């Protein structure tokens, strides 16, 4: 019981974080907060990949004499790329938010929708 709790704990945390990020994206009207929710969602996926790559008594994948067991390097490579791409998309999203603030004077999604409906 304790064994399988420890074995699945990381996945459950990943699911909790993913759902928290998803909830923030859906329920909050503030666009900056939506972007932070999106990055929480992203980082939960990163955690999932890295958790999958872990080997029980392995070590960091840097080849060294006298060490035989390493964690899987492939998820690390994939997530390294994903982190940088995540920042690129976040910066583009923030630029859009700044532009919306210029055009509408607000960054609340519901107010922007009301203005669009009024036009």
């Amino acid at each position: 019981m304790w064994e399988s709790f420890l074995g699945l704990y990381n996945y459950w945390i990943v699911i909790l974080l993913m759902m928290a990020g998803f909830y923030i994206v859906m329920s909050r009207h503030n666009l900056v907060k939506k972007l932070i929710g999106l990055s929480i969602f992203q980082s939960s996926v990163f955690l999932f990949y890295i958790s999958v790559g872990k080997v029980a008594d392995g070590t960091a994948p840097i080849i060294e004499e006298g060490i035989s067991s390493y964690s899987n390097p492939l998820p690390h490579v994939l997530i390294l790329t994903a982190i940088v791409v995540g920042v690129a998309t976040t910066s583009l999203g923030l630029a859009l938010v700044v532009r919306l603030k210029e055009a509408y004077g607000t960054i609340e999604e519901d107010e922007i929708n009301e203005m669009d409906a009024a036009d």
Partner: protein
Amino acid sequence: MITATNLVLLAFLVVLAWAIARIRNLFVVTMLAGIYSLLTATVFVLLDAVDVAFTEAAVGAGITTVLFLGALLLTDREAKPRKNRMASLGPMLLVVLLGVALVYTTLDPRMPHYGDAKAPAHGRLAPEFLADSVKQVGAEKPTAIHVPNVVTTTLASYRGFDTLGEVVVIFTAGVGVLILLGGNGIRRRRRNPAPHADSSGAGSSGAGSSSPGSSGNGAGA
């Protein structure tokens, strides 16, 4: 010991995510997001992903926080309270249902447990990458790269096109940010102020602060 640290740090992440959802002051939320990124980096060290931890600490906790602070400077500091509290009931219900369904799938006996050396993810490519990274004693393979850090060798050789694609994405995002915030549009707006005159002053300073942000992205890659 490492397991206990892992348990506590991951629990902290959930608490932080909850706080980020609750708090309306966007400056506090941004700082909490920075702490969240640093904690994630610590967890990555525990999970043997040292390169990822390094990138997350530099890019996730550093550049992202700076970008968010810059955006806060140009927009609002406070999220407005929701007018209709019942409106978030639907998303909550959906999220709970989806979460329960996902947890249910992890209970499948075929789901490899954390740290399982026989998990299918470790079967195919990883042993090859590990073996090819350093010079093999006896068996000289033409693919041997002679760099001890396997993540570096894989990133630069086997997944080189991936990295090229990453650079293209960063370039596209940088161009997008420049088109949205910089150059002609701002100058035109300054000459004939938009109907929302209170925000046009913030917009002109946006051109100045956006370009260091996008060049910072390039350095982060």
